């Protein structure tokens, strides 16, 4: 029933459907409709080009050979997707902010837009990709042959079918992959077609799986028993291979050009990663769910020696389920076509941007502006590259004869691509990574991969058996599969371990030893800190005369209308009236980025360089960029300083306010105290004068007594007012000092005699007159006033039976110290701090003065440049007066 003709018809119908879908999606996107084209679902499904025909057919074959080992190929990407927050998010952000067109472009862009590096990566990608494409051709051809065997007409010829398959795929890729020049733009048509193919291949595999489990084995439980009973029924995966393959597939998932294309270049929204983080692992899980059952049933049902890689097809066929087999064939066809199309697109972009364009540019050198239509050149280069890549795949397939198992070819390619990992990861996370480091690391890894894996795998033609056995020139430590004499390792583990570790070491060492160019350092900072700032380096200085040349060149790359629109927008942004913008550095930088979306970073850089006259990234520019952040820092620190200043001022104001409040309170209490002090004598004066006025029969004695009281009280008032006046004069600082010279002894003599005059001689004054021969140069009257006050205080307050005042004078370090100590009970500690305050009186009982004496003393001593303080621990009340030796020393 399922003849070859029907099969071919179905294939053609399917391809036509894909064309239709791709075309419709392109139309919808162009019309601005179809937001679902940019949905996370489509993005996730487009990631499924990871599952090629190799995984569609080869996974079952792998499972039939080595059990669960096949699952490693899916577990690696699962881990990468789950850890998207660490790596993929940054990769996608960098890819979008730098308008990267391919993985070669990304690496070249990171390392100073170096074209050498881009060419290296391109060569590696083409070398690794060719066997991979051949693998897809092989799988399609093999699946054709299965149906051809059953077809009685026998019209099938393998060679021609491969040729037509390759041609068909090339045409599809050219038609949809090179429609628009801007490789950084989304290819909605292709991506949608790939999403459709993803659904088809998933359902095909699930259908076969369900058929096998429920149709053949009869349910899950019998299937499990059957699995355990089969020849692969035990866990027998080598530990080294398990780890290595998970790591390898994870690395390849990031580094494969086609994965980079759909994951980074075609990404429309960073947020899609959030969905893909779980949806894509789910897709992988579903893809691998039925692999072991199909393999086990295939091993059971089919004759020994049949190719396990084709169990997906042969199991339904052997059960007579032709339509299921047809569906499964379409699934395999889908996986092969989608992979080939995207790979061809990705590789052709690399080849045209990094190999063809630089060569073409160098032939145009000297003519100043670019002549000819660059658009056509680039597009033609892409188309030819696709054709050439497909032809390479075709010839590889014809030459190798398609013998090796599918899985092993795929793994060889994986190991090749994973050599990009150190340069990629290092470039994203380490600012110290340099171009030299990347080049050296890539070269080391790449050569080791060729030497230890690719050549030995290709058979005796390219690497003689003797080399494999004994090493080149008989150096056994250089045997390709046992480097440095370490034998017994699995060849794959051996290669991955040595190539990647030496690659990484070389990358790091060369990076550490070399010094990057300014452009490299700028790009490095942008890549590593992409989340902090996405500002491009400013590398261009231009003059007005070049705008026209730039315009001509841009028209030839972007097309007339887009280029004019771009220039118009730029001119408006600059606020000019003409249609040509000034070639300011920022304009040139945007133009370069715009162009790099079409021809790649390195080429765009070189093209603008040709017109503008070379990149002018210098240390000064680096400094300028650094300056910007430094200025920000400085500005913020200035703000900080100002704010601190304000806080300080506020604190001072607060303090001043507190002081003012205190002073105001002091003034209030002073006023009330003064009123009180004035009121007491006033009251008695008033009372006695009233008595004298109103009482008629007062005796002369009484009159005299009352008048004496009034007189005393008036005297007291006068004294109080004198004291207050004195104090206010002293406090306001308007006091005039009459500086004179005398000895301390004579000042004390006068003070003692005037203080004790009039009073009963109850107080004994002890003095050491010999030590008092100190010359003084100060206001002697004021000083005498202080001494009198202290002596009369002792006379008034000393409560000893025989009061004795000891006056001693010392001369210490340029200061005269005079102590007045009596033998009374002294001043209680809690009152000591108060005695110098106004109206402070110790003990209310002994009313004598107004309590201003010591306050006045303190003020006087301050004016004289000395001080007076209470001296505790002398038995009685003791005061110490300090005075500078000569007045002029202190009272400047």
């Amino acid at each position, binding site marked *: 029933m399922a003849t070859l003709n029907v099969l071919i018809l179905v294939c053609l119908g399917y391809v036509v459907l894909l064309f239709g879908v791709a075309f419709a999606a392109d139309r919808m996107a162009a019309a601005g409709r179809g937001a679902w084209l940019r949905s996370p679902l489509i993005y996730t499904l487009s990631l499924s080009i990871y599952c090629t025909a190799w995984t569609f057919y080869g996974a079952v074959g792998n499972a039939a050979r080595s059990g*669960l080992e096949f699952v490693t190929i899916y577990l690696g990407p699962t881990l990468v997707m*789950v850890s998207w927050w660490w790596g993929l998010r940054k990769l996608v952000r960098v890819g979008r902010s730098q308008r990267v067109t391919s993985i070669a472009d990304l690496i070249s862009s990171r390392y100073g837009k170096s074209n050498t590096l881009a060419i290296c990566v391109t060569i590696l990608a083409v070398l690794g990709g060719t066997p991979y494409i051949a693998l897809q051709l092989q799988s399609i051809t093999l699946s054709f042959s299965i149906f051809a065997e059953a077809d009685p007409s026998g019209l099938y010829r393998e060679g021609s079918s491969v040729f037509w398959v390759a041609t068909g795929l090339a045409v599809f890729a050219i038609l949809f992959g090179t429609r628009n020049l801007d490789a950084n733009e989304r290819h909605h048509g292709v991506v949608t077609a790939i999403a459709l193919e993803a659904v088809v291949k998933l359902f095909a595999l699930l259908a076969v799986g369900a058929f096998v489990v429920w149709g053949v084995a009869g349910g899950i439980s019998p299937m499990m028993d059957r699995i355990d009973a*089969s020849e692969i029924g035990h*866990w027998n995966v080598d530990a080294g291979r398990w780890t290595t393959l998970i790591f390898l597939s994870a690395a390849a998932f990031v580094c494969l050009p086609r994965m980079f294309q759909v994951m980074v270049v075609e990404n429309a929204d960073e947020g899609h990663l*959030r969905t893909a983080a*779980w949806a894509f692992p789910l897709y992988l899980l579903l893809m691998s*769910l039925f692999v072991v059952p199909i393999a086990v049933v295939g091993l059971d049902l089919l004759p020994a020696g049949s190719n396990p890689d084709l169990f997906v097809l042969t199991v339904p066929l052997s059960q007579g389920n032709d339509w299921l087999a047809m569906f499964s064939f379409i699934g395999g066809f889908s996986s092969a076509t989608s992979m080939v199309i995207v790979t061809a697109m990705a590789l052709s972009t690399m080849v045209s941007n990094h190999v063809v364009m630089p060569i073409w540019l160098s032939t145009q050198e000297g003519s100043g502006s670019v002549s000819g239509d660059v658009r056509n050149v680039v597009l033609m280069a892409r188309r030819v590259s696709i054709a050439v890549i497909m032809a390479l795949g075709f010839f590889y397939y014809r030459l190798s004869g398609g013998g090796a198992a599918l899985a092993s070819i795929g793994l060889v390619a994986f190991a090749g691509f994973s050599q990009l990992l150190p340069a990629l990861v290092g470039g994203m996370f380490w600012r110290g990574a340099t171009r030299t480091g990347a080049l050296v690391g890539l070269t080391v890894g790449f050569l080791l991969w060729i030497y230890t894996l690719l050549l030995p795998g290709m058979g005796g033609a390219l690497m003689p058996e003797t080399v494999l056995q004994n090493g080149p020139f008989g150096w056994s430590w250089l045997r390709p599969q046992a480097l440095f004499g370490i034998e017994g390792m699995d060849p794959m583990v051996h290669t991955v371990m040595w190539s990647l570790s030496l690659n990484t070491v070389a990358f790091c060492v060369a990076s550490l030893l070399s010094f990057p160019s300014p452009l490299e350092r700028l790009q490095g900072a942008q890549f590593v800190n992409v989340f902090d700032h996405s500002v491009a380096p400013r590398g261009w200085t231009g003059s007005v005369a070049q705008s026209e040349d730039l315009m001509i060149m841009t028209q030839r790359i972007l097309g007339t209308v887009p280029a004019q629109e771009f220039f118009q927008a730029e001119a408006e942004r600059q606020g000019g009236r003409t249609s040509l913008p000034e070639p300011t550095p920022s304009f040139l930088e945007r133009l370069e980025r715009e162009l790099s979306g079409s021809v790649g970073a390195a080429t765009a850089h070189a093209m603008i360089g040709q017109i503008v006259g070379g990149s002018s990234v210098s240390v000064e520019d680096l400094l300028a960029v650094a300056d910007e952040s430094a200025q920000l820092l400085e500005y913020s*620190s200035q703000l900080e300083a100002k704010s601190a200043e304000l806080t300080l001022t506020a604190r001072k104001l607060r303090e001043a306010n507190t002081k003012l409040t205190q002073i105001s309170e002091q003034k209030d209490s002073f006023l009330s105290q003064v009123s009180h002090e004035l009121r007491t004598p006033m009251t008695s004066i008033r009372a006695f004068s009233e008595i004298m006025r109103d009482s008629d029969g007062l005796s002369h004695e009484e009159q005299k007594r009352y008048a004496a009281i009034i007189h005393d009280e008036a005297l007291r008032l006068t004294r109080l007012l004198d004291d207050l006046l004195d104090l206010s004069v002293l406090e306001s600082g308007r006091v005039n000092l009459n500086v004179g010279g005398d000895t301390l002894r004579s000042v004390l003599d006068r003070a003692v005699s005037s203080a004790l005059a009039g009073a009963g001689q109850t107080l004994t004054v002890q003095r050491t007159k010999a030590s008092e021969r100190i010359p003084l140069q100060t206001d002697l009257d004021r000083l005498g006033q202080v001494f009198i006050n202290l002596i009369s205080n002792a006379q008034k307050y000393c409560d000893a039976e025989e009061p004795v005042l000891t006056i001693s004078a010392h001369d210490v370090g340029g200061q005269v110290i005079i102590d007045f100590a009596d033998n009374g009970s002294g001043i209680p500690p809690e009152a000591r701090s108060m005695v110098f305050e106004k109206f402070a009186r110790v003990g209310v009982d002994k009313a004598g003065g107004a309590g201003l004496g010591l306050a006045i003393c303190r003020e006087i001593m301050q004016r004289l440049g000395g001080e007076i303080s209470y001296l505790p621990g002398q038995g009685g009340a003791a005061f110490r007066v300090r005075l500078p030796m000569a007045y002029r020393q202190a009272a400047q």
Partner: protein
Amino acid sequence: MNSREVRPPSGPRPSLFLERQSYRRRRLSDAARLLPFLGAALLAIPLLWPGDQSGSEDVPLSSAIFYIFTCWAALIIASLLFGFAAKRLGAAEDTEPETDRWQR
């Protein structure tokens, strides 16, 4: 007299502590970041299983399949939940940076 010294605040700094919701979101993204390590650890467990086919202690393939696919599904579900939770708690990036330094 005010004895407590007033500390001068020196400019706007990133707040040291976040609001409850932002805090939850932070810790959620921490957990999401740790997920791949958990996954790698779970997938490394088969390395401990006896690999040769000789003994009777071999792990049957059905058990191996069960273990690996269960881990896999658990990873997917955890990743899905994190995705939804992050969306629910606010997809917008945190605007308030959390500083790791104590205020001086």
